[in-house]
């Protein structure tokens, strides 16, 4: 009996063995969020399916990473952050011709706010928190491309 993890062990083993990322070249992800708890959780979810993960605390740090030549297959970016928010950072990344898939992650429910975020150049927008169910289809899409 595994303490504190009833039913988790078998699903964990199944997920990792079916992980499409680990069978091929590594994929790189950037997690952009001012909340250290979210950075920790989202990084762990992505690492668990084989991503190499970097983190940034705000939009400016994310943009600076791309300016220095860093490349990521996918970016998960929060909407509301100090210094530079997700909307401005996404606009800046697209203006720099960043071709990474950019996925907005927000706890905002307002359709208007999400639409503004999408218009900045997102490929997708998810509600926090990220879950395995939201990430797996993204991996499969990266794998196909």
């Amino acid at each position, binding site marked *: 009996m595994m*303490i504190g993890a*009833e*039913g*988790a062990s078998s699903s964990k083993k199944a997920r990792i063995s079916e992980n499409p990322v680990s069978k091929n070249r590594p994929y790189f992800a950037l997690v952009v969020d001012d909340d250290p708890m*979210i950075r920790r*959780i989202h990084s762990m*979810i992505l690492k*668990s399916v084989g991503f190499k993960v970097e983190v940034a605390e705000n939009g400016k740090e994310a943009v600076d990473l791309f300016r220095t030549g860093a490349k990521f297959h996918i970016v998960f970016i929060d909407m509301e952050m100090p210094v530079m928010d997700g909307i401005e950072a996404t606009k800046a990344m697209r203006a720099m011709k960043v071709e990474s898939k950019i996925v907005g992650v927000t706890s*905002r429910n307002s359709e208007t706010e999400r639409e503004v975020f999408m218009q900045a150049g997102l490929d997708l927008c998810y509600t926090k*928190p990220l879950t395995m169910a939201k990430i797996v289809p993204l991996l499969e899409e990266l794998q196909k491309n």
Partner: protein
Amino acid sequence: MNSNQLQHQVLYMRRSLFDQGYLDSEQLIQLEDLQDDANPNFVEEVVSLFYSDSARLIQNIEQTLSNRPVDFSRLDDILHQFKGSCSSIGAKKVKDACSQFREYCNAGNAEGCSSSFQLIKQEYETLRRRLESYFQMVKQAKAA
């Protein structure tokens, strides 16, 4: 208590956290699922980060509520952040209390905000106490 009794106590405490609506089982299980040998204390780390987030947000709410006139827009922003934080660990009751607070915010009802703030603090303290006891019991059971 022997090892079996400790394990049963852990499961009982865990089931109570879910059944009494303190925690969302799906979210906690997802966090536990991510814990591995390389990150053996991941769940506790995340919960500690939740405590830090919550302490900061509670202080911000307190400060904002004490200002006159009350800045309901600012309060709504803070509560929105708090709700997001609660969602990450599945802190259901605290999250529901935050939703109630936000309704009073939207109505510009300062008294309602104050009373629901008391509820938020109460639910948060209860959750924190129960989680601390739970993780303490998990450690004891593992050591046994």
